[in-house]
């Protein structure tokens, strides 16, 4: 043995090293492939252009999975048109802790909000916690609520945080009108009693729920909404000076017990004092909520279950909210959604974003987005952006050019995620194109944000 080691020591060392390096390099450099496939739409064709869905599809009984990539708009002619969001780990965290389906709005970009409930004596209290992204400082508001839970609230506390929005049916619990925070007490499985529509008047620094002075409560209950008959709040949005509450009614079995799935979908408009202004409801049989978005006057509720369907409502300040209709979306090939691989991207049409492998890649690899027929839409220098995000660069500009070399659109990317945890992006449509470094179909350059 010693003789062999003496004679072949260097050879053995070199072979072991080469093998180890090959395996390590190979393991650390794995492609990420993204495919974009068009979904078949059936229903009222006039509605298809109004559908908005953002986020991740969740299959029955399984946890959904937040993707690193979110593309908000795709043109029918095949080129990405706007709002490309490439998320680093930090953005991923930010997104995870915020409402994943609407990205971050201005308020959520400043702070993270969570809601927790606890029992003091015989009274349940709701606590809204605001934690600043920048300083980490927490402030609180509390509200006595009539929410009864089959869970042991007093022992462990029932906590709603926006992470729940990824998996749960409650997609948005908070809304802002003129910098005032409004919220709906999220009621989940097994809860009874009442949910509450509330407004936060001011924040305090003391966490204790019993420290609200009687004449200066931190929050005010605007409306008490009974959870009888399986009624469940699903999303709250601000619409001009009104609040839009989307809710559903759980199905009941023959014995009058709550069963899986929903049987009714309702949209209510409240004024800021908690009065119901308008109401519309539709019969809808579905298992879970995939996405709820409010885009201008169009409310889009996408539900899962036996079918993946988007129901559209139109809102107006003067008249009654109207139900437009439903579009059913069918996946071209697969029927069972794999939450770890699939995300839905919509603008004019519905697409499935299929992330085949999520591993990051080496710098000369590109993240390809292709049509089902294999046509490459674009290539993203993913590691470059990742690296830029790590270094805190805030001056990157992303340009997408078509295969003929013509520039299609350009956005600035705020990659300073390390510093402020804010994901992307400021749009600069008319910036000059200078000093470019072209990588396949995509041009990336530095530019001062102005």
């Amino acid at each position, binding site marked *: 043995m010693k003789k062999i080691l*003496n*004679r*072949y*020591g*260097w*050879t053995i*060392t*070199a072979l072991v*090293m080469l093998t*180890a*390096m090959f395996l*390590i*390099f190979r393991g*650390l*450099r*794995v492609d990420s492939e993204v495919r974009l496939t068009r979904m078949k739409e059936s229903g009222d064709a006039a509605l298809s252009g109004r559908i908005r869905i953002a986020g991740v599809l969740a299959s029955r009984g399984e946890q959904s999975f937040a993707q690193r990539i979110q593309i908000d708009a795709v043109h029918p002619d095949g080129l990405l048109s706007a709002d490309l969001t490439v998320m680093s*780990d*930090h953005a*991923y*965290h930010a997104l*995870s802790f915020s409402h994943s389906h609407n990205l971050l709005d201005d308020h959520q970009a400043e702070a993270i909000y969570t809601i927790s409930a606890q029992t003091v004596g015989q009274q349940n209290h709701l606590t809204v916690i605001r934690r600043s992204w920048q300083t980490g400082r927490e402030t609180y508001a509390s509200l006595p609520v009539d929410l009864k839970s089959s869970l042991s609230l007093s022992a462990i506390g029932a906590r709603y945080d926006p992470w729940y929005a990824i998996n749960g049916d409650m997609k948005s619990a908070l809304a802002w009108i003129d910098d005032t925070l409004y919220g709906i007490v999220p009621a989940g499985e097994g809860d009874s009693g009442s949910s509450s529509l509330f407004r936060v008047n001011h924040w305090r620094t003391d966490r204790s729920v019993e420290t609200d002075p009687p004449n200066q409560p931190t929050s005010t209950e605007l409306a008490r909404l009974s959870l009888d008959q399986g009624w469940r709040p699903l999303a709250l949005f601000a619409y001009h000076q009104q609040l839009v509450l989307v809710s559903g009614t759980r199905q009941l079995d023959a014995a009058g017990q709550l069963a899986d799935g929903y049987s009714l979908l309702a949209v209510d408009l409240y004024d800021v004092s908690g009065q119901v202004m308008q109401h519309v409801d539709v019969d809808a049989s579905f298992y879970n909520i995939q996405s709820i978005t409010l885009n201008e006057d169009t409310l889009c509720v996408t539900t899962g279950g036996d079918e993946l369907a988007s129901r559209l409502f139109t809102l107006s300040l003067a008249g009654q909210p109207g139900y437009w209709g439903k579009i059913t979306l069918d996946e071209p090939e697969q029927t069972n959604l794999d939450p770890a691989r699939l995300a839905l991207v919509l603008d004019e049409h519905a697409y499935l974003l299929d992330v085949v492998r*999520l*591993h*990051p*890649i*080496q*710098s*000369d690899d590109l993240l390809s987005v292709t049509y089902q027929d294999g046509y490459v839409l674009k290539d993203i220098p993913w*590691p*470059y952006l*990742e*690296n*830029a*995000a*790590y*270094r805190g*660069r805030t001056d990157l500009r992303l340009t997408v050019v078509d295969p003929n070399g013509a520039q299609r659109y350009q956005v600035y990317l705020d990659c300073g995620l390390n510093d402020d945890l804010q994901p992307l992006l400021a749009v600069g449509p008319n910036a000059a194109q200078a000093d470019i*470094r072209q990588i396949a179909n995509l041009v990336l350059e*530095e530019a001062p944000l102005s």
Partner: protein
Amino acid sequence: MTLKKLSRSFIQRVGKLYYLINHEYRLLQKQILIVCLLEFVIGQVLFIVTLTPYNREEKLLFAPFEQIVAQSGQSLLTIVSVGFALLIIGLGVHQQFTPGKSIYRLYHLETSAGILYGAKLIAAFTGLLFVLLTQLVSIIVAWFLFFQSSASDLIPGSLQLAFLRSAHLLLLVPADTWHLAFQAVLLILAVACVISSVLELHKPGKSAFPGLAIMVAVILVTAVLLRIVYGSLDEFNPATRFFQLLVATLLCGSVVLRGRHLLVERAAC
């Protein structure tokens, strides 16, 4: 000379080179293994010490792995380990100028000095790579031991991401062919600088100062080059890349040739 004689001569030279490399590497092997073992153990201890507060505060779930690597001082450990490896290489060369430590009397040194120098370079380069590989393995093992269970579900690819986000890890695993080539040249340059410096010190009959001064100048220029290449995220155009690689290769080539010249000169004495 017939083809048969040529091939026989070539095989003899390759065989001689192989035995020389093996011999040179055996001189370094034990010391390098000790450095690697220490590097691995200290690396794991540093990880454990760094991770303790994270685990206590349950923050590990959201800590990027590259942040843990940076905080645990792995880059300093790498520098120290590489420094020790270079010291061992230098001492190894120095020892061979002491009686009874060399096998070179078996060969005709006047004609085989080039092969001897090549063998020294290759063996030392292997040792240095072994130290770097140990550091790499240490970091990956730490990820599997301490990080994987908490992070892999939440942050898929966190290990791979770390190797794209950390400048230190990018040095261990170059992100592209260009960086790989550049680093290979730099490692050979580092080894050649050490060996040539020792040979300068043992240069017969002349002052070692001018030669050592040139070595210091080469190291400074290399440091500046290193700063330019790794100091910016900018993607250099192909011409700039070629120029950088050319400068590094010229520096490396001149140091290697200088070392070979010194060895031949020494052998001729």
